[in-house]
């Protein structure tokens, strides 16, 4: 592979306080969605839907991995992890996380994200749209457990549901 122009690291998010002394760290949600969905449009045109979904899943997973390392590192108790995750996701306006099922022994989880950053309020479409979220959750779960996870969105605002529901299962070797 040719030399890369950019390799993500948390530091590269920059010093927001320094750079935005007047506007601060927040922006309008439309701007976030505008960027994500035009990326999707362009990627789909260039690489097709399946490949685009893969890219978004991987991007989300990379984000989840870094998010965990910078915010949750050191937590070993699952309930404590969930509690802190709920607080952070809510405080940062990402969504309201709720756990429906958590079977740590068998690595099987069902969770929902209401008022989701990516999709809540989108018009109804034929399929689930939160592929980036799937990857993000997978990145968090893998970082916490050290095991590989497959996360799938089973209900989405875009398919007429009022909350996004995800299943997360350990990938058995």
């Amino acid at each position, binding site marked *: 592979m040719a030399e890369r122009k950019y390799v993500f690291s948390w530091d590269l998010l920059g010093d927001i306080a320094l750079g935005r002394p007047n506007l601060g760290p927040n922006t309008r949600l439309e701007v976030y969605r505008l960027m994500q969905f035009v990326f999707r449009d362009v990627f789909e045109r260039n690489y097709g839907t399946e490949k685009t979904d893969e890219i978004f899943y991987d991007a989300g997973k990379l984000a989840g991995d870094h998010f965990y390392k910078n915010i949750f590192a050191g937590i070993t108790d699952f309930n404590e992890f969930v509690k802190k995750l709920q607080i952070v996701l809510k405080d940062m306006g990402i969504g309201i996380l709720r756990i429906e099922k958590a079977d740590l022994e068998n690595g099987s989880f069902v969770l929902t994200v209401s008022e989701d950053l990516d999709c809540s309020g989108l018009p109804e479409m034929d399929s689930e749209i939160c592929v980036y979220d799937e990857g993000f959750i997978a990145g968090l779960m893998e970082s916490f457990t050290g095991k590989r996870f497959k996360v799938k969105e089973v209900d989405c605002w875009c398919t*007429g549901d009022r909350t996004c529901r995800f299943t997360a299962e350990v990938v058995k070797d």
Partner: protein
Amino acid sequence: MTDEGILAIARAELDQAIRESDWERAARAADSLHRACLDRAGLEHPADAAVRVVREAFFAQKPSAEPPGSLSGNRELAKVLEDVLAVRDSLMAMANGDLSKTIAVKGFLGGSLKMLQAHLNHLTWQTKMVAKGDFSQRVDFMGEFAEAFNDMVAQLDEARKKITESEERYRSFFTSVEAIKLIVDPATGAVMDANPAAMEFYGYDREQLRGMSIRDLDTEPARESLAELANIAANKKGHGFFRHRLASGELREIEVYASLIQFKGISLVMYSIHDVTELRRLEQIRQDVERIVRHDLKSPLTGLINIPQMLMDDANLTAQQREMLALVAASGQKMLRQINSALELHKIESGTYRLVAQECDPAELIRENVRLMSVSMGVDPGLISIREHGTAGPGCRIPLKTDLLLLDIVLMNLLRNALEASEPGARVGVDIFEDGPEVVISVSNGQPVPAEVRDRFFEKYATAGKKGGTGLGTYSAAIMTRALGGSIAMETADETGTKVTVRIPATH
């Protein structure tokens, strides 16, 4: 109008609308004609059938899963029916408490149901977390229920904190006190915990004691140890004497105060143990010495009492010498009575005394005691007033059949006690009367009982304010009154002095 008439008018209206190219009017006429034809054929209009089927799907007890024959090819209707029935199934599952059923329907209706299902599942998970001790869980949905849930969890958390604090305080007290303490499961006798004092006393470490049963320590048969524990559990407290075996094999006499306690929601018995081995040994020595002295003193006393009597028969004695000899004999009698009293007391304490009932006159017994005291203690008989109230009137003899020896000792003790407590020259009153099946004798004096002995007035060795008091007088009066089947009570006040009342059965 006849059906033919309606058909003719509808057909004419349709023809006219077509001729005039008024298609909206033509459509309405065609629909009227269509309905009229269906009526003639006895068939249902498709729109009516569709509404009926959907309504049934929503509200009927047992709806049809398929559209009626005339609409069987209508895919949209079939899909609506399928979705409505799926929503019904999901709702019924949730109503029956099954939150795991997959809701296959998409769209607003299915989405709302899924949101409710997700909330209920999350609530279930939160409740499980609370059950595991995570009291930080809070519900931020489901309105008033959320408030009630959060309030309940907060109160549980508060209660748990209080229990934890209480248990910590208890633990701190349990481990820091010098008294020997064991925690025992009353059902099995298992030692659940032991404090450092117990470890030192028994010679086992904490884990060793926790692996033992109280039966391993107690030398009583196992059945009796457990029966004692069951008794403590039933009465919430208990007291007794036991003999426990230490790790060294040595046997120790212990006094146990046991109480039922609640620890982490379980009923347990806490033993507070006092090692009374040395006390018991000293007590035994004291009793043995007392018994030997009493027996050894009785023989020489016989001479002390009888020889003055014989000497007094000599006509050459002066009146003063006779008086002195009488005093010697009376002193001997007094000492003999005291020794006999102590011996009877010992018999009662050891359970070997046999009551012998006989007719007696309580007033005469008191007068006799007064005479003796006048000789031996120099008491002025005029200071003791005896009031006798028989059923026949004041001054009448009160019939009484009881153990004369014990009653005599009781009265002697009460009189002597009253006289010794009184100021010189102060009066002592004795009242004797019948009260139903009982004879009541009360002895009063003007002095109050010192505050420090009021609560243990009838206990052994309880004495205060009396020179040379042994603390046995009121104790033996009480124990002998009880041996007579009676009761004894003391009333005292600074203003009115003290009255001791004995009630005994008139007939034994």
